[in-house]
């Protein structure tokens, strides 16, 4: 239906990119990676020597930056501008989808999740529905999300690496992924809040500088490129500025829907809310996180418009030529290309490239650690070997990261879609399988084990069918029309809600203990600083029943 949106591997490589080894950008990237390693190491030493300050909590702003860095991957940094550049108006569905979800998260999930108080997303599913099978499906979904999402990151890092180090795409994917996996298996601390905050600062400075400098040198904008790029719209071709040219109305809505609810179901986003001081901090960090994300999202369409105009004017243009035009690889690199086509010095383009690598590494760290905890904590320790020692957990966790790293690397050699699209697939999975479990689990106490299992199984099957149909083996045009993989949640999420509710109503209600835990998540009484719903239920012990809302 939208063949133009899904590119073939043939136009994977960015022809317009200046591929060669560049000394100054290479030093910048290596310096940045060393900084991450140093921060991880300092933290590790602090941990092992017990040098942390007891009672010190992570502030809203720092936590918000961590949310921002964890969130903004190569898909936001590179892919978003790429999607807007390649598919114009359709790309805006990604901007809306990837931000509006935070409102749903803020209103319905953040504080309640904090109150439920568990460690991982599968933990929530397993404990709320009192089922190891539900926990296993939750863990499997978490791993699958980590995998699809990371393939997009690997592709992004490989493409940016091409600009900085030259050589070829496959080599760059291998090198970049090896560095990331090496980091994580050695220190594991790359996802620490401090490191995330630093990664955020690097990526946002790089991106904003790129927008301002490209806008200024190109004569497009002065102080507010986020608005001034509007003047360009009339001059750019209709493929860019006219609504629903590249993709229809239905696909637009389906994509935005998937991304909005996917945001609320992503395990690596939700884990941040488990550890904040209290539910107030959970809410405030969400707002800060959204603000830090918006700084980049406001700028992406401007940079995309500048990029398209620069590309039109260059020897490779026009962007939307019938033959050739901007390739998928070039779209994914439009952020770097815009800087390069503006004839800016290589060190500056190198800064922009380094920001992309920071974004990709920060998110991959978060995803891989989430996947390793899904295997090590949820599957291995909770289901296979309850007596697992800490050493065994470390071993299983590291093995997971290495194995996942290898699979992701190999898949990224010839990815079936653009960076932003690959990541969107992970969102539609999260929106279909996990979001309904979180939402119903927290808001409807009668959701039971049978309902959850039925809902998750149906959701998983639907998502797999949509992905197979779109990317691997096409079996139905009608199915592709209404359940596109990228927007499968528009049909999938309501379907999973209906299945879960119907099965829950047809079977026995969950035990009273679980219902009380759910009610406690909504009690108007503020909880003690570090209490979880389970603690409160335990201590109440059949006494006064927790307030209902």
């Amino acid at each position, binding site marked *: 239906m939208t063949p133009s949106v899904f590119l073939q591997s043939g136009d994977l490589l960015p022809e317009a990119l200046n591929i060669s080894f560049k000394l100054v950008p290479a030093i910048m990237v290596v310096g940045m990676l060393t900084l991450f390693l140093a921060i991880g190491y300092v933290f590790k030493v*602090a941990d*092992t020597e*017990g040098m942390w300050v007891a009672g010190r*909590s992570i502030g809203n702003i720092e936590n918000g930056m961590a949310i921002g860095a964890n969130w903004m991957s190569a898909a936001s940094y590179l892919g978003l501008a790429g999607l807007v550049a390649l598919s114009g108006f359709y790309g805006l569905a990604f901007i809306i989808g990837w931000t509006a979800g935070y409102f749903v998260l803020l209103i319905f999930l953040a504080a309640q999740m904090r109150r439920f108080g568990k460690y991982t997303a599968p933990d929530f599913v397993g404990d709320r529905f009192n089922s190891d099978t539900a926990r296993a499906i939750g863990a499997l979904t978490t791993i699958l999300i980590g995998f699809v999402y990371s393939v997009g990151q690997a592709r992004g890092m490989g493409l940016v690496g091409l600009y900085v180090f030259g050589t070829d795409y496959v080599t760059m994917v291998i090198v970049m992924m090896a560095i990331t996996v090496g980091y994580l298996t050695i220190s594991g601390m790359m996802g*620490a809040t401090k490191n995330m905050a630093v990664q955020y600062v690097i990526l946002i400075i790089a991106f904003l500088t790129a927008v301002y400098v490209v806008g200024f040198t190109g004569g497009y904008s002065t102080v507010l490129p986020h608005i001034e790029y509007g003047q360009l719209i009339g001059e750019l071709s209709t493929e860019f500025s006219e609504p629903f040219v590249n993709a229809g109305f239905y696909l637009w809505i389906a994509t935005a829907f998937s991304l909005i609810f996917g945001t609320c179901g992503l395990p690596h986003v939700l884990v941040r809310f488990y550890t904040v001081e209290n539910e107030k901090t959970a809410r405030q960090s969400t707002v800060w996180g959204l603000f830090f994300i918006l700084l980049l999202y406001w700028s992406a369409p401007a940079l995309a418009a500048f990029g398209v105009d620069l590309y039109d004017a260059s020897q490779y243009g026009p962007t939307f030529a019938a033959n050739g035009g901007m390739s998928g690889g070039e779209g994914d690199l439009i952020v770097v290309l815009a800087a390069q086509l503006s004839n800016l010095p290589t060190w500056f383009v190198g800064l922009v490239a380094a920001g992309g690598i920071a974004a990709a590494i920060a998110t991959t760290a978060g995803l891989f650690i989430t996947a390793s*905890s899904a295997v090590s904590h949820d599957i291995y320790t909770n289901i296979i070997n309850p007596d697992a020692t800490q050493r065994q957990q470390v071993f299983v966790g590291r093995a*997971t990261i290495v194995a996942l790293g290898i699979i992701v690397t190999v898949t990224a050699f010839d990815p079936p879609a653009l960076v932003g699209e690959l990541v969107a697939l992970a969102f539609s999975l999260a929106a279909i399988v996990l979001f309904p479990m979180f939402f119903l689990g927290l808001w409807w106490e009668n959701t039971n084990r049978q309902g959850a299992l039925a809902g998750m199984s149906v959701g998983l099957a639907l998502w797999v069918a949509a992905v197979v149909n779109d990317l691997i083996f096409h079996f139905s045009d009608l199915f592709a029309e209404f359940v596109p993989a990228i927007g499968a949640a528009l049909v999938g999420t309501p379907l999973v809600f209906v299945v879960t509710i119907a099965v829950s109503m047809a079977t026995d209600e969950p035990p009273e203990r679980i219902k009380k835990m759910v009610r406690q998540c909504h009690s108007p009484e503020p909880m003690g600083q570090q209490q979880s719903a389970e603690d409160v239920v335990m201590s109440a012990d059949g006494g006064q029943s927790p307030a209902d809302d």
Partner: protein
Amino acid sequence: MYEHILVPTDGSDAAEYAVEQAVDLASKYGATVHALYVVDVDATSYSLGTEQVDRIRQGHLDDMPEVKEAADAATGYVADAAAEHGLAVREHVVPGEPARAIRKFVEDNDIDLVVMGSHGRSGLSRVVLGSVTERVLRRTRLPVLVVDVHEKDAEPDAEADA
């Protein structure tokens, strides 16, 4: 000769095999037995997520019931064995990297003997995990009694329920 004997434990069989020897020595010298469980920040990072390391760092170990439970079970095993012999026993739980945390504990608490078990790992698992015992041996100047789990192979799980 020995007043404070340290028994680091991670709750594994290998660690528990060492307890018997530690208790025997302690009763001979009338020493206090210190049971130490290190909440491994690496394990926390890989199994619960880096965010949980932040939580430990903030000193909220009480907020993590499962972790605390595993720690209490491990040190409780040592405490029970020592109590049976009427020995003074203290249980400790500290977060950190095991070998370093043990060394630091030894320095801060006037320990004069460490008794610990060893898996006798070899090959790949030794490369990946290393040996905490080996690192403690190398980093402390105290006498360390290493009880190898393989010597007890003839009677597996004999002590498991003790």
